């Protein structure tokens, strides 16, 4: 047994897992408040990372300001997307809603490839030191930053939904749209806000991954990895999404460990989450924290 490798993989898993958790949280946020399943979540990461990369390269401004500009862009983008494309889909059957977001994801992926090419492009140097020593392990600085940022985002989300006026309005809308509307909550605003927040936070995750691995169209695969995480946690639970992301991240790396040490099948880690996904759907389709929907006629 190679304990050092195992430990390294578990730490990697936790760090990647928090990123999955953040993206899954954004996905859940949209699903909870607008009942729309966003298959284009991965493209938010992709667009965010490319826009940030482009701003930094084009205007030569410090990373922090470029990043803020990128977030502003993503906010406008998220709101526009909701108003132009997704508003007409309210009340349509689920297959239409799913297909609209899938169509959007194909469209954005192709446009991004067209504008920025298919090759991996590295981010300009952001941190002074490439990697740090944590408990005897070499961990990339960007990953540590991402871990800290993810935790901060999660705490911010918790505060937002518990205490802020907008957050309470969003929870009320998620609970019952008609009742929320009758109490004076602007559903329009809530919908637009949830898309904007989701796009912004996803873009943040995209930038973090872009700093570590370079920006390329493979970023959008995060959007697909999110599904095992959200299903595991229960589709409409934010805590479930975070926990699901962590579990999937660690499991993926453990699968890689088992694969490299014992089984010697290649690429097991890439499909392992999907096997897990099928098993969860068979035995506990509503996940760990999801609400079981009971239909009455």
């Amino acid at each position, binding site marked *: 047994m190679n304990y050092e490798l195992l430990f390294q993989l578990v730490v990697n898993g936790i760090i990647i897992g928090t990123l999955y958790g953040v993206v899954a949280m954004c996905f859940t946020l949209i699903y909870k408040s607008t009942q729309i*399943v966003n298959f284009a979540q991965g493209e938010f990461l992709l667009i965010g990372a490319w826009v940030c990369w482009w701003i930094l390269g084009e205007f030569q401004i410090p990373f922090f300001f470029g990043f803020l500009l990128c977030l502003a862009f993503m906010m406008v983008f998220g709101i526009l997307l909701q108003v132009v494309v997704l508003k007409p889909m309210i009340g349509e059957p689920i297959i239409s809603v799913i297909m609209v977001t899938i169509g959007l994801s194909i*469209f954005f992926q*192709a446009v991004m490839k067209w504008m920025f090419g298919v090759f991996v492009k590295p981010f300009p140097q952001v941190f002074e030191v490439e990697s740090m020593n944590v408990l005897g392990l070499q961990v990339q600085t960007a990953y540590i930053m991402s871990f800290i940022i993810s935790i901060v985002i999660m705490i911010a989300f918790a505060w937002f939904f518990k205490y802020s006026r907008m957050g309470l309005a969003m929870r009320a809308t998620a609970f019952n749209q008609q009742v929320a509307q009758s109490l004076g909550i602007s559903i329009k605003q809530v919908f637009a806000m949830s898309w904007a927040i989701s796009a912004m936070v996803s873009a943040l995750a995209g930038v973090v991954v872009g700093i570590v691995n370079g920006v390329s169209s493979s970023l959008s695969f995060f959007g697909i990895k999110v599904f095992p995480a959200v299903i595991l946690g229960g589709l409409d639970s934010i805590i479930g999404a975070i926990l699901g992301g962590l579990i999937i991240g660690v499991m993926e790396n453990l699968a890689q460990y088992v694969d490299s040490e014992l089984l010697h099948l290649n690429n097991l880690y890439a499909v392992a989450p999907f096997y897990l996904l*099928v098993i969860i759907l068979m035995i506990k389709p509503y996940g760990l924290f999801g609400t079981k929907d009971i239909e009455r006629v």
Partner: protein
Amino acid sequence: MAGHDSMRCGEFRTTYRADTTIFPTPWSRNFAILGVAVAATCPLFLEPYYLNLMIQIAYLGIAALGLNILVGFTGQISLGHSAFFGFGAFASAWLNNVWGIPVFFAIPLAGLWTTAVGMIVGIPAGRIKGLYLAIATLASQFILQDFFARAEWFTGGASGALAEPFSIFGYTFDTDKSFFYVALTYLIVAYVAGANLIRSRDGRAFVAVRDHYLSAEIMGVNLTKYRILSFGVSSFYAGVGGALFGHYLGFVSVEGFDILLSIQFLGMIIIGGLGSVMGALMGTAFMVLLPEVMEGLVSLMGSTDWGSAKWFVDGVPYMKEAAIGLAIVLFLIFEPDGLAHRWRLIKAYWKLYPFSY
């Protein structure tokens, strides 16, 4: 008695039997026969390039009809259709290469194999629906794709599998011209069988499950059985379509049966019209011809400075890909019932012309 017969305007059906015929009017039947006859003469005067497009429409159309039975008629969702399409292609090549079964029998056998796989994948459908089912089938897409890459005994791994051309009674259909007739025959059989399935008891059960599954269950429709059956039928069509694809190209590669093709299949039936047999074919034709039409437009613009700019010419493959996504989104927003609905409107307009009110 000149009677009411001559007074007719529009369609009036007085028996259930008349209401469930394949063709609602004699005219539509005659047009269908005429269409098949015209299609059959196509190889005489069309270039191989256009025949190739028509063959593509045929085998993809068969698979798309399968998906429409699953999604449009039964109301289930599958994001893994291309994996079944690929499985059919590999299964047929494998049966032919390893077991020496003639291609003529290998194609339906491959369809049956794919049915078995589809039913296994469909088992979760007995319990879950909607979004959960979409994600479960998405998982099966990745698992099957992984299987294709891994199972070298079956698919030939990274080097792919060779497939013999279609042959019967010693005559080999290895040119575009001759294979066109094979594809056309399969297409007609598949579509007539599909239209008949919808008229049958099982077809009505599918529609009942789609419209309101609780009421269907109360009426005595076995939900689990029909959901899994629907997955089976849909994968049978996908398998046959895939097998035709394999024997037409002569080579099946592990790449290409990816999520994008699955989405294209879904795009075909959405553009064509969910829950319409002919819609599946129209949607397939749209999806196959869209990139070709774009290519044509680009070559028309070739002489202008916009058309010869490097960024524009290099972007054409991505534009085609983006057009697929855009077409799906625009159809869902502006014409959610698809081309089949548009076609019905056109027919209704001319039927009552000029007194359309």
